[in-house]
């Protein structure tokens, strides 16, 4: 499949967005106390780690980070080939009575977040749950919104948004691509 590809955020844009989200988190929570960052694999996990690092730089405080795999809670498993599972690792203190911030790269239909809320409720009872995403591209299918957004990107549902992170992809960027029409394609 050939695709026209555009870069929407460069590496520096990604860094700035994360720094801003880190500040917003501290402001909304009135400090780092009781915050727990849970990244949704795969790219939500390094994002959560970066946010924790920013908070450490700003406040000198250690915010616990974990990962929350939502695969087994998804409502679209039967629409796709079977997926592998990724680790769910909670910080030692757990999530009970904490302010859990779910961190993901892209917010789209909202179904991943719905699954994450279900998964979280099986793991404990947080005092509050917030949602931080690097990109919100719209097209919500559920009544879900993000508390902290790096960048709002109006997109067409035919387009594909790719978040690249240095930890996994060698560089930071957000790209958008438009799949070529299927006719005459090389798929």
């Amino acid at each position: 499949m050939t695709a026209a590809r555009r870069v929407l955020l460069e590496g520096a844009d990604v860094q700035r967005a994360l720094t801003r989200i880190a500040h917003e988190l501290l402001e909304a929570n009135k400090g780092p106390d009781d915050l727990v960052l849970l990244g949704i694999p795969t790219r939500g996990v390094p994002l959560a780690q970066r946010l924790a690092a920013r908070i450490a730089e700003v406040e000198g405080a250690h915010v616990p980070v974990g990962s929350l795999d939502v695969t087994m809670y998804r409502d679209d498993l039967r629409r796709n080939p079977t997926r592998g599972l990724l680790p769910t690792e909670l910080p030692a203190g757990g999530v009970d009575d904490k302010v859990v911030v779910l961190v993901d790269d892209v917010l789209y239909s909202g179904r991943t977040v719905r699954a994450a809320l279900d998964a979280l409720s099986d793991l404990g009872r947080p005092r509050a749950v917030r949602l931080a995403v690097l990109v919100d591209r719209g097209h919500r299918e559920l009544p879900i919104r993000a508390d902290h957004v790096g960048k709002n990107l109006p997109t067409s549902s035919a387009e594909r948004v790719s978040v690249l992170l240095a930890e996994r992809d060698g560089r930071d960027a957000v790209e958008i691509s438009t799949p070529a029409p299927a006719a005459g394609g090389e798929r």
Partner: protein
Amino acid sequence: MRHLLSAADLDRDGAVHVLDVAEQMAATQRREIKKLPTLRGRTVVNLFFEDSTRTRTSFEAAAKRLSADVINFSAKGSSVSKGESLKDTALTLEAMGADAVVVRHSASGAPHRLAHAGWSRSAVVNAGDGTHEHPTQALLDAYTMRRHLRAAGSGHALGRDLHGVRVVIVGDVLHSRVARSNVLLLHTLGAHVTLVAPPTLLPVGVGTWPCEVSHDLDAALTGGAPDAVMTLRVQAERMTTTGGGFFPSAREYSRRYGLDRRRAALLPEHAIVMHPGPMNRGLEISADAADSARSTIVEQVGNGVAVRMAVLYLLLAGGEPAAPTPGGDS
């Protein structure tokens, strides 16, 4: 993966993937709330033509922890015991809407027939067929070995196979579906297997299997420096004429092929002792070997649930491969 009929259905990456998924399943089973919604609305039928409470219970727990509906269909007391054919049973289960059939049958190959004779569209999991295979047992054995022998230091074994692990399997290989599945799977995972048995309890043709064969347990334990020893169940009645006359007496079998305290002491420090159960204590394994610190026999049972959850998940959770959907929210 459409069915799991034989350990040979899995290549190296496929087998490691099952073990990795099982690892995540095991993690969920250490939580307070063990039930996952993953297979809600799916129906798993446990079709047991042979009694096996432990295997059936293990599959039942696995299916229920994933929120599947479970129907236990045992031959005893059903129309099966009145002569209903396997085909008619399969058609019945199909009509009930079974998404997966977990089948235990005394006839080798019965799961193959269920999967391929055109009687039903359900996914089929072989839970032990005759003297053929028992692939989920081999998976849970490999899982147990990997945790003990490959997770040291790092704490987890994700992504790893059993390359270089040395395994001795001793006992009635001829009649053992566990041995067949283990030889195939362990070989796929890179382990080195030595089968030890009296020649009468090895099948003609064992020379074509991907393993070593020996008749001398002491030599295999001392010379082979195994990382794991698995003892297989031996039925004492196999020594009689009607049982086939495979060995002279239980005492002689135990003396030559039983894993006792002396032989357990020949093992390297880190080596583990395994048994698929149920055990004949005093025949193929002595009580102190079975109950020693290096024994994983009880742990194997628990690992069975995680492995079977992984198998059911991989067989049932996904749909037909669909065109990739656009969007990064996946």
